[in-house]
């Protein structure tokens, strides 16, 4: 048998094969009914967030004091979810909030994942003393009450949605780093990696072509399950008044504003909270479905 070159190793995983794999995962995912339901909810929310400007019947920040006269107005034909005490249309604000929540979720988790992959891959690939130090850093970050640090940093930064995304992302990489590290450490012992290494595949290529693709599935699952955490953190920040800059709407800031109208105006606080719960629930279901679909050991 001829010696295997790195080139032919990479040829083995060409596109038809990976397309097959996507179909396989999708077939598995479809069996998980709640996950499919979650996916439908998320697609609807995405659609609403992307086309918020077109769907919104009103400008979410436009006040209408003549209409509201200082009191929130209940839902009506003109305002489906009513208005707040300034006469701002709650439905339009909820749509704007969907945009905030989803973009914070994705960007923050994107940052976490990028950091986590780099840090975890470094630890797992080099092992030894570097691994020891990185593990210790991860332990430190895991034992800080991160929410309080996120609050602190946000309080000192100029309030903006971009800062929130970055700060949440910077404090959320630990789980992914641990995961990638564990995967790398386990994969390094596998024959195909030893084989690739022994035929002289350079380190960087080993990481990007052989190790990372095989650590991909658990990272995708972890990411899907981390997004709801980021969304909850953003809404908590906005609820405490340390989130989006008023008058910008976010589900959390709508709830903050609604606290004064708890008994008098249910339409102020029920929809934003229900939307947060629904979004988080949908991401959790999709994450669970993905985990089952991507784990080859669970397949019958």
């Amino acid at each position, binding site marked *: 048998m001829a010696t295997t070159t790195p080139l032919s190793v990479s040829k083995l995983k060409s596109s038809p094969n990976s397309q097959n794999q996507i179909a396989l995962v999708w077939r598995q995912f479809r069996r998980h009914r709640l996950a499919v339901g979650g996916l439908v909810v998320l697609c609807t929310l995405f659609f609403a967030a992307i086309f918020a400007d077109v769907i919104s019947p009103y400008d979410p920040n436009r006040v209408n004091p003549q209409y509201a006269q200082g009191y929130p107005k209940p839902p009506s034909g003109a305002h489906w979810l009513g208005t707040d005490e300034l006469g701002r249309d709650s439905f339009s604000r909820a749509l704007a909030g969907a945009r905030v929540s989803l973009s914070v979720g994705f960007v923050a988790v994107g940052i976490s994942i990028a950091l986590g992959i780099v840090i975890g891959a470094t630890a797992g690939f080099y092992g030894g003393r570097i691994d020891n130090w990185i593990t210790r850093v991860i332990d430190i970050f895991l034992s800080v*009450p991160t929410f309080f640090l996120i609050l*602190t940093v946000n309080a000192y930064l100029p309030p903006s949605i971009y800062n929130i995304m970055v700060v949440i992302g910077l404090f959320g990489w630990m789980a992914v780093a641990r995961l990638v590290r564990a995967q790398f450490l386990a994969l390094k012992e596998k024959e195909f990696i030893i084989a690739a290494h022994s035929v002289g595949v350079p380190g960087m290529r080993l990481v990007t072509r052989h190790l990372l693709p095989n650590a991909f599935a658990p990272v995708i699952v972890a990411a899907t399950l981390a997004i709801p955490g980021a969304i909850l953190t953003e809404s908590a920040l906005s609820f405490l008044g340390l989130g989006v800059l008023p008058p910008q709407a976010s589900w959390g800031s709508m*709830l903050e504003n609604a*606290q004064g109208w708890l008994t008098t105006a249910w339409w102020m606080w029920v929809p934003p*909270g229900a939307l947060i719960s629904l979004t988080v629930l949908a991401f*959790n279901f999709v994450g669970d479905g993905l985990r089952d679909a991507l784990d080859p050991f669970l397949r019958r």
Partner: protein
Amino acid sequence: MGRYILRRLALTIPLLFVISILSFLVMHLAPGDPTAFFADPNKPESSSPAEIARLREQLGLDDPLHVQYAKWLLNTVQGNWGYSLINKKSVAGEMRERLPNTLLLGGFALALALLVSIPVGIISAIKKYTLFDYAVTGLTFIGVSMPSFWFALLLMQLFTNQLDWLPAVGMRTLREELTGGAAVLDVARHLILPGVVLSMGSMASWTRYQRSSLLEVIGQDYMRTARAKGLREQTVILRHALKNSLIPMITLLGMSLPHLVSGAFIIETVFAWPGMGRLGIGAIMARDYPVVMAVTMVASLVVVMGNFLADLAYAWADPRIRYE
């Protein structure tokens, strides 16, 4: 075991040290200046450059960062936690007043979550794929997904505003001098709503873990052995499965502590509970460095010690763990 405890303890001190540097840097590198808080809009001279320079000098804000940190560290280990920049109260005194309230709330939430999640998780696992199991699974998903502050608003609206059963704010009824048993009962009534809200997230996720942990144990070979030697199902579950399924819960308990502490910050604020979390949020808003540092350190200490105890309990409970 003694050496393991010492070694593990020796690791926590540098940990706290690094946490303190991290939070110190976060607070001092970020823009924003506590002197702005002293500016009185009615007295223009209070925000004059000379006055600000005097304040910065007085607060030690002009020293290089490492000098400020060294000063802070020296003072802190000597038990001198400084004074709040805002109300000039001693930070240590304030902490002594607030921390017990937070521990009361957190302890109650922890106990409640444990008392509910472990039995419910066990029953759910034993009665797998029954109506009860599905209902529990559904509830745990909702419990994990609902933002705690929204759950707080729901309970407040229901039990305080509509039913008028429970108080929603504070820790004691104001303008009433209660003593003895009546005072304890009063605090207990105030504790229920924030305690339930704080425990919700942990309760839901622990139930799920207890369920899957027990299911995993039930699938092990030694369970089949226990049944094969003719033990009654009850004995098999209670004596063999349950004990082993509780071991991973210990780690989980330690890992949930940061969540519980974070939750306390939000929930104490919503329910106006006079604890450390509310103190911390207020201090963050006012850029009150000494208080923010103290709250961060005490909260981290609680988390680190919790993890330490969880590790010890794990090593004690699982003989497969070799501590060397």
